């Protein structure tokens, strides 16, 4: 028997390896250099990975016999994930002033989690995908409990226990799918399902359902969302910022891959997913209406947004993939931007009361203006990016025939106006009552302006970027 060298193409994994190496350095170097230098190192590493992702665009390389692929889908998601992580790193710098979260290990663990998310987005094999999923999850569990407060520790523990529970269901689902098809590769599974000899459709259907639940948990879809408000509120704000964008985006990358490629011809999961989306849209938006804490309101809003992106999973992959990617890119900018404002305005990691925003428009014009921008975009007001994102996803779902859900999504996003506009009204039309702290330094201010500009540009000239993404579809 001849030895066959494994098919390893390091070049195709350049962004992933860069992040991983940076993480390794960030683990070792804190013994020798300052915390700030580690932050800088992380940012540089992420920027290099970003450049590598852009450089690999359209090359369509793969490694490990196609189990790891750097196609445009993976690279696009990789860019979104790296941007999300960069925003978190930059936001964490200014918050250092109020203490907590800023031990140097923070960056190492964050980067490990990022490498997990990138692996998840590039995987074309259920096992690789699962490894990425777990690397990401373990990192985020630790990050959630990074603050030495009872709340943060409770959040981390809760997330870990429930996450383990969900992972168990996910792995069970993977096992069932493997049992039904005998394959781990995403395309191979689809081929097996389509072959005339395929007999195990009911086992595959149950497996698909369990995988759906595992991912439904990770992206926070009702009724598997209940950890979200607790964990998002309890975790340090920077971590919540990272979780709400990067973890969600990566989980959706895997979600889209599995259901758009491997299981697209398995029946039985579409109706449950519709049910989950409908429930998510209603619960997320209605519960957000009555929140008095901005951080918790944004937590529920991110549940609602999982419902919108869920529509893209239902839609046919040719439109669903690119619209989900575009949406998540915009979502990363606007949601992380909103969290960045929240971050510098709150005195600790408990977030702040929405009422206390009153009068911010005149006392902190830049923070108020950028927060307004992000909230309007989250609400989906044209010409901001959030509108185009919703438009793309809604039209993808509508052209696949899900009119009822699209109408529900449009109605609930009209409801969402109520809670997105309230902070804006308070900031500009009420006199100041509370004096809020302001930890924003130059880096945060630049970050906010860049995010706001990105949201505006992606809304004004959508096809400049979306045109590139249309190649993403399989």
């Amino acid at each position, binding site marked *: 028997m001849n030895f066959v060298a494994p098919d390893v193409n390091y070049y195709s994994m350049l962004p992933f390896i860069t992040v991983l190496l940076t993480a390794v350095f960030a683990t070792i170097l804190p013994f020798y250099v300052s915390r700030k230098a580690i932050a800088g190192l992380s940012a540089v590493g992420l920027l290099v990975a970003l450049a590598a992702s852009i450089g690999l665009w359209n090359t369509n390389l793969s490694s490990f016999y196609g189990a790891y692929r750097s196609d445009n889908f993976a690279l696009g998601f990789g860019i979104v994930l790296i941007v999300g992580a960069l925003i978190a790193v930059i936001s964490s710098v200014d918050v250092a002033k109020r203490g907590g979260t800023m031990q140097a290990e923070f960056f190492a663990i964050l980067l490990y989690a990022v490498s997990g998310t990138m692996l998840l987005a590039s995987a074309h094999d259920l096992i690789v995908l699962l490894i990425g999923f777990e690397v990401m999850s373990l990192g985020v569990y630790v990050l959630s409990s990074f603050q030495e407060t009872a709340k943060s520790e409770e959040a981390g523990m809760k997330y870990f226990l*429930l996450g383990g529970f969900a992972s168990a269901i996910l792995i069970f689902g993977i096992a069932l799918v493997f049992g039904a098809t005998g394959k781990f590769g995403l395309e191979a599974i689809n081929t097996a399902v389509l072959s005339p000899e395929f007999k195990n459709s*009911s086992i595959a259907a*149950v497996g698909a359902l369990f995988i759906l639940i595992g991912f439904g948990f990770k992206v926070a879809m009702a*009724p598997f969302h*209940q950890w979200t*408000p607790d964990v998002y509120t309890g975790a340090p704000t920077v971590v919540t910022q990272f979780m709400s964008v990067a973890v969600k985006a990566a989980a959706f990358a895997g979600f889209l891959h599995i259901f758009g490629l491997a299981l697209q011809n398995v029946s039985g999961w579409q109706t449950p997913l519709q049910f989950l989306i409908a429930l998510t849209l209603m619960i997320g938006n*209605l519960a957000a209406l009555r929140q008095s804490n901005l951080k918790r309101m944004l937590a529920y809003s991110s549940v609602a947004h999982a419902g919108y992106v869920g529509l893209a999973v239902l839609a046919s992959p040719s439109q669903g993939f690119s619209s989900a990617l575009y949406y998540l890119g915009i979502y990363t900018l606007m949601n992380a931007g909103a969290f960045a404002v929240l971050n510098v305005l709150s005195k600790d990691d408990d977030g702040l009361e929405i009422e206390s925003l009153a009068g911010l428009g005149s006392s902190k014009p830049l923070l108020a203006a950028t927060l307004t921008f992000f909230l309007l975009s989250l609400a989906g007001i044209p010409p901001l990016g959030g509108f185009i994102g919703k438009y793309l996803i809604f039209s993808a779902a509508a052209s696949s025939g899900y009119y009822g859900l699209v109408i529900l999504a449009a109605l609930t996003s009209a409801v969402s106006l109520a809670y997105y506009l309230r902070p804006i009204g308070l900031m500009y039309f009420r006199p100041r009552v509370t004096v809020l702290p302001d930890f924003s330094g130059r880096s945060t201010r630049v970050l906010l302006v860049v995010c706001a500009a990105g949201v505006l540009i992606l809304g004004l000239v*959508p*096809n400049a970027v979306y045109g590139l993404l249309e190649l993403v579809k399989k």
Partner: protein
Amino acid sequence: MDFNHNLFALMPVLPLLGWLVLIVWGKNMKEPTPGILASSLVFLSFVLAVVGFVQVSPMKEPLLNTLRWDFLPMWVSDAKGVLVSKPLQFGFALDHLSSIMTLIITGIGFLIHVFAIGYMHGDKGFSRFFAYLNFFIAMMLILVLADSYPVLFIGWEGVGVASYLLIGFWYTDVKNSDAARKAFIVNRIGDAFLMLGMFLLFMTFHTLNIHEINSSFGSVVIPNVTTISTGIAFGSPPLELAALFLLLGAAGKSAQLPLSTWLPDAMAGPTPVSALIHAATMVTAGVYLVARSHGIFANAPGASSWVMWIGALTAVYGALSAIAQTDIKKILAYSTVSQLGYMFIAVGSGAYWVGIFHVATHAFFKALLFLSSGSVIHAVGGEQDVRQMGGLREKLPTTHIVSLIGTLAIAGIIPLAGFFSKDAILSSVFTSPFGGDFSGYAIWAIGLIVAFLTAGYMWRWYSLVFLGTYRGHAHPHESSSVMTVPLWILAALSVVGGFIGLPHFLGKNVNWLEGFLEEAAPNALGFHEIPLWGELILIALALAAAVGGILFSRWIIARDGVNSAGWIATRFGNASRKALFVDQTYDIAVSAPAKFISEQLELADTHGLDRGIGALANGTAEAGASLSVWQSGFVRAYAIAVLLGTAILVGYLALRSFA
């Protein structure tokens, strides 16, 4: 970059820039800098409009700017039913029709900007006012330059916002902000229908590009026989319905029945705003929309006759409402409603150039009349009641002369501008291919009556303001030259403006405007021919109606005096003063039920829904502290929820496979 092709696209950019500068730094500028800045930017746009006019005059095809970008990603099914990406472009097109409109908008807009420098002198919101005006000009230019309906819609909404901001410019008075809200809301009703129209057009034509839609109709359409290249038959239901939706959208913006009630209230804004937005430009957007969509309307005979009838009813409604008003601006407002009705008659009859002709002449004399009344209001210290005026002929000599010109022009006295355009409207409806003979003749007769009424109420307006003796208590004085120069220019245009569209019997090629718009907005086919003597009789009758109206009005005023105790006190006079009770009807038919329903809903909301959501959300508001099972904070409860959810989904699958 192709300079020649993109120059005209700068037109909306310049005033937009002005808006940006004024809204950011305007507060720090001293009067009159903001006014001069705003006016000069609009003047530059006017220069560009002239350049564009020269460029586009010899061309057959519209001039498209090359700097355009894919705006909205969209998909259409191709012949095999496969979805194909066909993004909507954000682009402008300049053709003969939009060129005429840009000249009107920037030209009149510039004059009104200059006038406003004098009129708004000393106002606290001086720079804010010019910021809004510039914003309006930019949006209006986007509206007329758009080469697709969605881009047109951006301008359409933009001018709505500008109108809202400017009607409520003096927002500290609740009456003004109510008027602004009313205008905005009524416009939104029309906008909703415009959107429905766009949806239907996209479904039918798989594109929203205006020129593509217009050119998809074959060049020769013989009514009731031909199917056109898109396979959509002449007068087919989707075409008629789309045209009706567009008509309702147009009716909202142009204050046609049944969406006319906002325009008289809109006079709450400063007078230059009334002149620019609510007389010369924005309200004609509906007429422009119909002329722009000429392909659709020319092939939708049913919808076209609706356009004519709505125009005719609005024309007579506006004229009847104008005759007993006592507010100097309200008379002109109802007159605008009525004149817009005339324009709708014209475009409904299929003679699109005639509609645009009246848009142009009306812009001249109505802007003139509004600015004159602005000058009068300025002179008498803010008084707007015509019964408190009179005798201003000697005190305001310039304003008096130009007002007289404006009055005679709108009344339709030969050879002023209004005479030619009104005559063109009446003769085109008389010979229209749409609506059958009866509609054509009936609407012609209505138009003639409206001409009589118009001359009557305008003469009343003129004589109550300028003739007799002064009845007020202020000390009127003539305005400064920054205000009178624009008046003179507009007066000159009102005199000569009609010569761009001379009647046919004077020769085949004397009508410059019709020839100019032949490509961009060709007439619908099938106008009847009438002999020369017939045409002469029509003209004589129109002229007789105008002169008769003036004489009748003189006689009434001489008989009843200024306060007109005689006929205004009659039931007819009362109805006219209340604008035929349309507002009251809406109150009873729409507002009262809506109020009732919303009160009930509020009850249901506070007692039912709010409590429901409250219960749901309160449970989640303070995690751990609440006893709610739903969001208790306990890990085991959450795990059970996950498990239950899983069980339900698997149960569904099991049931489905058994069923």
